[in-house]
């Protein structure tokens, strides 16, 4: 499928994610043990044969660059095309200060205008990099080509996201989106999942239109602004989808992975989720270890108890330590006798012997990267 170009928006650091976005933007948040959330969209693209992918970044993308490297682990390191990281190069020329972030997606696209001009495919798929989903993009593109729609939007009948940061569609009898509800207080109707396919020509004209009319936001400029002028149709995928919108939301979305049905939706053998190859050894379980209803990545050493938790790579749980309903990111070191409940520890956090940390399901305690408790 060489006629589709991919663009992933990876420039946002959602402030609601507090400690988790202190050192990274939303797209490089670890999710599901060994993955970063960007792995899902990137794998969706690669599995659908989208070879040329532009990744729009702005600030705090060091961790993202570190994770992606040349893109070789996603088979996206190519002589021609492949993965391109797009910092705001046009933006820098036109604005004397680099302060602040993009004001919205249209602003971001205007920031990489010269890249867009050189896209060699006729169609473009625009997607958020902060959505855990495994959907058949190939089919969505096929539908776009056969339906005659100007824009095809990925939608679900099963709204799951926080309405404050989500768009909803009303679909008319002709199957065309007839109304758009932007960031309401309560969910209403069909939820948009932030993945859109359109032709390159349409995209260029929209970017031109928005930058000349001072419109920064995709929701306002395109979804609302072009309502009635362009034919937008939904493509439905009702399988699992998770957006990380806040710390409690990160917690509950992550914990859903303990459900085999959710894992079956996300980890489809025909469309594998690829990630950075780290060559960790296997995980060692000591003689007195206990690990139940948990997802445990490679490279851990577990000698204590782990219950209802998700462990990233190289986590150590010492003897007598107990971890319950926790998400422990890479390199977390829980020492002897420590007890953790409803805690999220970021990379390389150390919890000294005997410490007790307790959050709650609705307010999980998050410990920032490299901290020592």
């Amino acid at each position, binding site marked *: 499928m060489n006629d589709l170009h991919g663009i992933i928006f990876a420039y946002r650091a959602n402030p609601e994610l507090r400690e988790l976005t202190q050192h990274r933007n939303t797209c490089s948040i670890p999710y599901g043990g060994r993955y970063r959330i960007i792995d899902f969209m990137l794998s969706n693209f690669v599995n659908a044969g989208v070879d040329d992918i532009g990744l729009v970044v702005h600030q705090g993308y060091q961790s993202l660059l570190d994770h992606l490297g040349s893109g070789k682990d996603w088979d996206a390191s190519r002589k021609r095309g492949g993965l391109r990281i797009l910092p705001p190069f046009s933006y820098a020329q036109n604005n004397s200060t680099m302060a602040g972030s993009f004001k919205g997606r249209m602003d971001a696209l205007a920031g990489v205008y010269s890249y867009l001009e050189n896209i060699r495919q006729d169609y473009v798929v625009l997607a958020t990099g902060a959505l855990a989903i495994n959907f058949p993009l190939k089919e969505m593109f096929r539908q776009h080509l056969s339906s005659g729609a100007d824009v095809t939007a990925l939608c679900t009948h099963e709204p799951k996201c926080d309405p404050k940061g989500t768009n909803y569609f009303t679909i008319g009898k002709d199957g065309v989106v007839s109304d758009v509800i932007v960031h309401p207080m309560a969910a209403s109707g069909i939820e948009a999942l932030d993945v859109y396919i359109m032709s390159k020509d349409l995209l260029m004209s929209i970017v031109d239109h928005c930058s000349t009319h001072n419109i920064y936001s995709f929701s306002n400029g395109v979804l609302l602004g072009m309502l009635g002028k362009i034919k937008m149709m939904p493509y439905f995928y009702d399988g699992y989808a998770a957006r990380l919108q806040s710390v409690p939301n990160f917690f509950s979305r992550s914990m859903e992975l303990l459900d*085999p049905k959710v894992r079956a939706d996300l980890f489809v053998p025909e469309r594998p989720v690829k990630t950075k190859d780290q060559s960790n*050894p296997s*995980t060692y*379980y000591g003689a007195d*270890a206990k690990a*139940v209803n948990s*997802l*445990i990545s*490679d490279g851990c050493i577990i000698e204590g108890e782990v219950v209802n938790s998700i462990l990233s790579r190289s986590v150590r749980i010492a003897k007598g330590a107990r971890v319950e309903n926790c998400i422990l990111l890479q390199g977390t070191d829980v020492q002897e006798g420590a007890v953790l409940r409803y805690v999220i520890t970021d990379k390389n956090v150390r919890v000294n012997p005997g410490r007790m940390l307790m959050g709650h399901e609705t307010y999980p305690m998050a410990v920032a990267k490299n901290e020592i408790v």
Partner: protein
Amino acid sequence: MLLAGGQGSRLKALTSKVAKPAVPFGGKYRIIDFPLSNCVNSGIDTVGVLTQYKPMELNAYLGNGQSWDLDRSDGGVHVLPPYLGEGEQGSWYKGTANAIYQNLDFIERFDPEYVLILSGDHIYKMDYSKMLDLHKKAGAACTISVMEVPWEEAPRFGILNVEDGDKIYEFEEKPKNPKSNLASMGIYIFTWSKLRQYLIADEKDEKSSNDFGKNIIPAMLGAGEVMMAYRFQGYWKDVGTIDSLWDANMDMLSPKSDMDLYDTEWPIYARSAVRPPNYMGPDASVSHSLLTSGGEIYGKVENSVLFHSVTVEPGAVVRYSVLMPGAVVKAGAVVDHAIIAERAVIGENAQVGEAPSPRSEEKNIAVVAQDLKVGSGAKVEAGAMITKNVKGGAK
């Protein structure tokens, strides 16, 4: 130059489809990952892998060497199968020395000062650069890595007798009355110009079996070349038999084994399968074991090494066993002292292997070859080698 052509016939069913160096080991690895990672960690960036027996899996595994950082524009990993030359001259590799001889052109292309010869069937961590330092310092033509073995076991090894400053003066293959307990580990560094000369001479000798241990080393000793022994200390295991392969896997569980897979200073690289983390079910019980991603564990696992994507269903028990990638142990089945190869399925309530009696010297490891099915309720006896499907209820 990594000799990876061996069939590993003593591993029987495990090497029916792959060469010995490609046999899975230690939860995450294949045997060849150890010498390859040692090369990379020692600063060697050009490696020839000599293949011969069933090389498909090995070739696919090595790929362009990316997983070991051996995808180089200059050097990198090269797979070297035997080939036919001008006038259809050529043959299978006749012996270890002949394998190198047939690749003279490959080595000449890189014009090296020294050549390191390794075999692809040992589990160990070793810094070859230290061995090279000794070789250079001594101005040796050949340096052989040696290990002290218990005196009573010395007659099973190729023994090197040394004098002042570990200079080798004699080599004895499996001596009845050993004069030393320094066993050759089959790791050689040669000064290339010397080795080249001896390889060419050896090839001309029709009676030679073209083997390093049998021919090249004795010839060099006979000619009075400077030959050094490099003493290695640490974990080293030849995994050429079912028992030793099982043993070495079990060693990975022991903190005393001196083989720290978690050491970030000397990592063992592997091409890893990208799988989601391992899921431990609500009633799972795991102790003293290594588990790898992609697995779904609902039953009981003790003292075992599980590779990626292994399923252990509720009520199933796995003890003192090695379960290779994709193996499935169905509900109620018991696997004890066994090696279950890739994707083999152990049916419900089946039993594979059993614990040896405490006094027994033999471990009697049962082996189920790859892609086979052991039917539900079937019983596979201790030490059995299963190469065909076993029907349900059968013994």
